[in-house]
């Protein structure tokens, strides 16, 4: 069954923004890719395939989300051959989603737009300490002091070696949001392929600087959105990845 609608005669790039919550936080990145391949078939999206003996859907994900995290701003790009508008596509996809997966926006990209993965510059997270895992010291106050210190040195382990790294330039914003319960940390950090910083790494450095160790289950992390940089060299301007897209 083909979607009746505009045939562009050529493929069109489409960016899909989705949220991942609830039990879906335990589904890893590769399985989310498989999930979308199947969902796109179920939704009868007229998706473009690669050439060759075993064709696959042309698909690019922005930034892999770690197992255990939820997100309000995940992105993938696909190419389609025909369509009946963005709203129709969004509805079709939402109809075939499972609980915990929701399509938020569908936009069209210019032909020369960079794909989702290459566009990622930063990501914003909210971070909470799980109950019973809060640090023993006055952490909200110390966190801001930590953030405002001139440098934040960490040891980053790679497969081959350990190296010392200053996290400071990779943290674009860090603030505290007061809530009825404990304050929530909001941070905007580099998420590009060359300088990806995980919020856990920042928090680990923070606790270490205060003489405590971060337990692997201490944090509840939500990725709030993923951003592209549309600014100039040395003057970044971060916009959500779907802000680059256009309505259709």
């Amino acid at each position: 069954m083909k979607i009746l609608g505009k045939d562009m005669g050529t493929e069109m790039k489409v960016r899909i923004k989705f949220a991942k919550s609830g039990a879906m936080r335990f589904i890893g990145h590769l399985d989310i890719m498989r999930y979308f391949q199947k969902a796109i078939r179920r939704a009868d999206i007229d998706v473009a395939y690669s050439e060759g003996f075993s064709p696959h859907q042309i698909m690019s994900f922005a930034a892999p989300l770690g197992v255990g995290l939820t997100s309000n701003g995940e992105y993938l790009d696909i190419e389609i051959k025909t369509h009946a508008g963005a709203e129709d596509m969004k509805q079709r996809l939402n109809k075939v989603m499972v609980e915990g997966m929701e399509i938020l926006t569908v936009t069209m990209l210019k032909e020369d737009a960079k794909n989702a993965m290459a566009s990622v510059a930063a990501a914003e997270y909210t971070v909470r300490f799980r109950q019973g895992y809060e640090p023993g010291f006055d952490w909200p106050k110390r966190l801001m002091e930590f953030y405002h210190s001139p440098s934040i040195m960490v040891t980053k382990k790679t497969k081959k070696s350990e190296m010392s790294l200053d996290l400071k330039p990779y943290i674009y914003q860090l603030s505290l949001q007061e809530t009825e319960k404990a304050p929530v940390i909001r941070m905007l950090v580099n998420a590009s392929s060359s300088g990806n910083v995980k919020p856990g790494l920042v928090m680990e450095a923070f606790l270490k600087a205060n003489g405590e160790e971060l337990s692997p289950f201490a944090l509840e992390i939500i990725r709030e959105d993923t951003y592209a940089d549309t600014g100039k060299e040395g003057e970044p301007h971060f916009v959500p990845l779907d802000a680059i897209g256009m309505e259709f």
Partner: protein
Amino acid sequence: MSKLALRDEILLQVEKPARYIGNEVNGIIKDKSQVDIRVAMCFPDVYEIGMSHLGIQILYDMFNRFDDVWCERVYSPWVDLDKKMREENIPLFVLESQEPVKDMDFLAITIQYEMCYTNILQILELSHIPLRAKDRSLEHPIVIGGGPCVYNPEPIAAFFDMFYIGEGETRYRELLDLYKECRKQEKSREDFLREASKIPGIYVPMFYRVEYHEDGTIQSIGPVEEGIPEKILKEVEMDVSHTYYPEKPVVPFIKVTQDRVVLEIQRGCIRGCRFCQAGQIYRPVRERDLDMLKNYALAMLQNTGHEEISLSSLSSSDYSQLPELIDFLIEKCREKKINISLPSLRIDAFSLDVMSKVQDVKKSSLTFAPEAGSQRLRNVINKGLTEEAILNGAALAFQGGWTRVKLYFMLGLPTETEEDIKGIAELANKIAAVFFETVPKEKRINGKVQIVASTSFFIPKPFTPFQWASMCTKEEFLEKAYATRTAIKGQLNQKSIKYNWHEADISVLEGVFARGDRKIADVIERAYKKGCIFDAWSEFFKGDVWMEAFEELGIDIAFYTTRKRELDEIFPWDFIDCGVSKEFLQREWKKALEETVSPNCRAKCQGCGANRFGGGVCFENTGKGYGNGNEGKD
């Protein structure tokens, strides 16, 4: 579903947490206050294996079509989670609602292979259900077993309240209605089981007593009360084109073994290989209607989004409308970029043509299952495949661009000699020679052909003509494997041939379970208590622990494996009627020893007795069953 049974800390520490969270596409969520009966459907192995099983998908779909039933799934927790659940005393839960199995009305366990028996005990123990049926009370679910292994349920009879013998489509509704009625009348567990045992196909072990001779063989098996049937005839769904089949199979998040749409095109097999249990217990052969299959194929692809569809049957080449079905699938799947996988096809010009259309020839391999190395032994086992057919098929395939061949054999078959073993090596060698003869040097990809010969060890199974056969010891098996290896090493083309063999100690154990009696339950429980679990996984199989369990309980393995059985011996499974008669199996056993083949069901009826079901292949063409008058006159 809002709450998971396991805490984040646990889910983040175990391998593949997606095994335990449910929430998959097409999983069924119901309002529990609106249903009368909760069923936990279990495959006692890890999620990826269990989710690949078609039978569960069929029954899951069937149960959930009943408005008063909610059927949910449960699989064996992997060893990492198993440990955590025991440490923290977390009860095993079903995936959909994440609620404990112990709160369900039924725990239905499908038993597909003997080596999962300890996993059944794991499921029961983690569910906080007493291992032995006699220790259960009204508060516990009714534990019911089904699947091919329950054609000899005796080794695990003590762990089950009841077994369902045969195909699940036919009697569950009746059983559920009886359950509701008994509950309404506040009948005891025993009273419900007593009534259930009168439903065709249902075996309730507690109402049967086994008496033994002094030598350990069986003197009698029979009901302990009036009104309980003496024999239990297997259940068969005769109208396979108008019965339950899932239009919306559950789609797992993680990659499972069978990550595709599975279309069961027929049940049963006309071939009658004498070692094969499936070939007997699923008689008579029943084909599904072509239009039904077309409709289901499209619906299932649409509803799952899978990128592959596979045909399932014991011998797909024997499906009478295979060309039409394949043409249809090729056309539809090309549009949607869906792969077609065609297992169990006989290699000939037709199948090679089809396969070249649906597979990448360079990447795929051809499979032959001669099962025995010589024509003599192939006649004994009634495997109709001839050397000529294999070599012709291979030649055609090599011309078509294939370079990889897989060969499957069994070692330890009745009457096997050194010559038969040598025949395995020679056949592999001849196939390699065919490659060098048919493919000119300049056309050889990488210049070579790869032949992989694999042997498993023959295990006599109930309800086959070989149920009377002696099984080899572990040492004999290994000697045969070494002899095969040596023979292959001695071949001219040995560099093109790779040889694999199956583990012998697992086979011996499987042999005990396959033809075991009620005394084996103690061994299974003892081995489980000593830490045996996931025995089907060679990395977890603890052969020495099993041997300890047998020794401690004074149970002699040879009694179940190598012992010669007389034609008039009463077998533990003889109170079950699998549809084919014991007389037929005896005739076939005698013919095997005479090295005489039997034609397949379509060529000439052998009078096995399955025509009593009144349909299927027995009544093709004639309309009245060409079983009549022909029985045994060959």
